[in-house]
């Protein structure tokens, strides 16, 4: 008898799983992919500076919080996001660092020349290998790293003013949040 009930039992287990799936999809934003890096130190990196000939390392950014914005000249959404990032960087609340992903440096420079450069510094990850350490899926993505070098926040997709106001600004230290 057990053998004949087996398909039913398997199906009931499957049904329970699907029910759990419905409950989950009710409560969560299915697009939210949490980063395992949140609350941990930013990965060590040594990447060429796109606009100079030196290399950028963790030490160069240590001591002050910064926002890391992943972009590429090949990425449509980055163009869309560009105005938001520029406006945010212009407010001078926090240093905005660019992370140029899987790009040709010449293309990247042309892109910056055409649209404007909002970034204080830009590191170039041409082959996308360092991106694996950060857990970067693609562009655009944005991270916030605090003064101690701890990753505090990650956002996937184009930034909007709303997301900056509601998610990013509350994380920033109070004295810097007041312009």
């Amino acid at each position, binding site marked *: 008898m057990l053998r004949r*009930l087996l398909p039913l039992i398997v*199906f009931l287990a499957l049904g329970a799983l*699907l029910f*759990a*799936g419905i409950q989950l*999809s009710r409560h969560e934003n299915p*697009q939210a992919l*949490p980063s395992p890096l949140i609350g941990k130190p930013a990965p060590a990196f040594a990447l060429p500076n796109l606009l100079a000939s030196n290399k950028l390392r963790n030490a160069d950014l240590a001591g002050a919080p910064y926002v890391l914005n992943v972009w590429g000249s090949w990425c449509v959404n980055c163009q869309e996001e560009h105005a938001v990032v520029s406006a945010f960087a212009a407010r001078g609340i926090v240093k905005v660092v660019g992370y140029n992903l899987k790009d040709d440096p010449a293309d990247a420079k042309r892109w910056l020349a*055409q649209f404007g450069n909002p970034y204080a510094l830009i590191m170039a990850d041409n082959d996308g290998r360092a991106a694996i350490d950060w857990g970067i899926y693609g562009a655009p993505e944005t991270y916030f790293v605090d003064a101690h070098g701890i990753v505090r926040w990650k956002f996937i997709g184009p930034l909007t003013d709303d997301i900056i106001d509601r998610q990013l600004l509350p994380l920033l230290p109070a004295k810097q949040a007041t312009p």
Partner: protein
Amino acid sequence: MLPELGQLALILALLLASLQALLPLFGAQRGIEAWMRIARPAAYGQLLFVAVAFGILMHAFVVHDFSVAYVARNSNSLLPIGYCIAAVWGAHEGSLLLWILILALWTGAVARFSRSLPLPVIARVLGTMGLVSVGFLLFTLLTSNPFARLLPMPSEGADLNPLLQDPGLIMHPPILYSGYVGTTVAFAFAIAALLDGKVDARWVRWSRPWTNVAWALLTIGIALGSWWAYYELGWGGWWFWDPVENASFMPWLACTALLHSQAVTEKRGSFRGWTLLLAIAAFSLSLLGTFLVRSGVITSVHSFAADPARGLFILVFLGIVIGGSLLLYAWRAPRDNDGAPFAFASRETLILANNLLLTTACAMVLIGTLFPLFADAMHLGRYSVGPPYFGSMFYLLMAPLVLLLPFGPLTRWQREQASLPIKLLLPWLVVSLIGGAVAFVAMPNAPWKYAAGVAIGLWLVLGTLRFVRRRLAMDGQRFTAEMLGMTFAHIGIAVFFFSVLLTEATSVQKDVAVARGQQVAAGDYMFRFDGVQRATGPNYLSDRGTVSVFRGDNKIATLHPEKRQYAAGGQIMTETAIDPQINRDLYVALGEPIDARGGWALRVYVKPWVRCIWLGALLMALGGFTTAFDRRFRRKNETV
């Protein structure tokens, strides 16, 4: 006024479906003939009202009646007429209505073409199909009414998702759904047999032609979907192991196993319980596919808008239908699971191996598709399972299947001297291996898949033809439609594996930034980018590129890949340009403009044999149709 009539027609169809389900099923249990006789007219009536509802929705699209919310959301007055019709099934509500219409058509066909069946059988089969229809009609009316009004009426609609504005999409859902829904027939016959208590070869013989047709339609539907993804998404791939694709592939695998197991049960009486279970499984997986695509439980590139309330409804419906039928199976399945006994070396054993491999593959796809959900529910983090898992798993499972396939037809039922089929096939196995070795030597830089593709293609074709020759050489033995169908399908498998492996081994892909006049070499071909012009379509603006393709000094094609911006909604779509030939596709897709001086990102692919992947699928489908027309299935008054 008309949309309200459409809704009324759906309600009447629901009443008739309830009638079609309840009276004949009770009548068959109690032996009340008058109640059983309700089944046929109720099925025809249901078909009529569903068709009326569907026609009214189509009419609303054609006359641009934007007071209907569904029409306003999915069409636009600029939309060409063909797409207006396809837009009927372009989103959730309408595709559900299409599903119901196709179920009603299958039901009507069963009612029409099964005159020779005993009355209780037809009553139970149509009753079961009626129950399924009741579920879907309730689902439509309660959670996804396509006729809901939108007030005040908007002056313009939002337009059909541009991804779906394509000839492939006009045909893909109706055919795929015909295959999905067709599994209902085999399921209904299985339930009828379980209710009847006489689980013998007869029900299988009656349901085999239906299973074959459903399987063939499912095959064509999946192939069309793959073809659509290939030229519309612009990534050059033909299969992505996306949850929605998996949702259609799982019933296909189960249905393929079912076809083979049905043959054993019909001819030898073995595997009776197993065949019942596979019929239930194929249908359940079709329903599960619907659930996965619509509930938002699993996110996917081509799934429709997610809605948990709908998901819960389908889950409850799934629970009743699948849980109920599995309970019935546990209670009524045959206790003596043995037909004619068979030796180890026999066709039964080979088909058993086929079934085990196919169902394992099906289970692996199911696990891979549901694992992200499982991990999430268990708080193990978010995962996605991709081609590396599915790909390597398939090579592992398909290798023994490919090796054993030609032995099946050449091995006798019940008992065979193992040496005979081996003796018949060994020379051809050697020839195939030599073919693979020659390919390996001729193309030393190609990966192993190239040689494997040649060897497997040769082995399957030669092995299958060996069966044809042997069969034709036998005096006084007919070469039946069933055998012809099997031959087509197995050669289709050969063509499929051959082209998949060769495409994977030898495709060339170039992602380049090009300026006007710049050339890109890919394989034996030279692609010259001749710039981009602005063009205007009926409901979009487009950047239309021109790419000339040369082989040596000869210009062999001019391709026009496009980047379209649709007027309503402003979505940007890539339209690829393809120069097709049986043994290679030249494929170009426009990326993004790179600079103000007319430079563009361009994706260039040379894909050898990719077209034969779908040709293989079509051959398989042809095999399914041919088998369905075997004379044996049309015999009246079967003796058992």
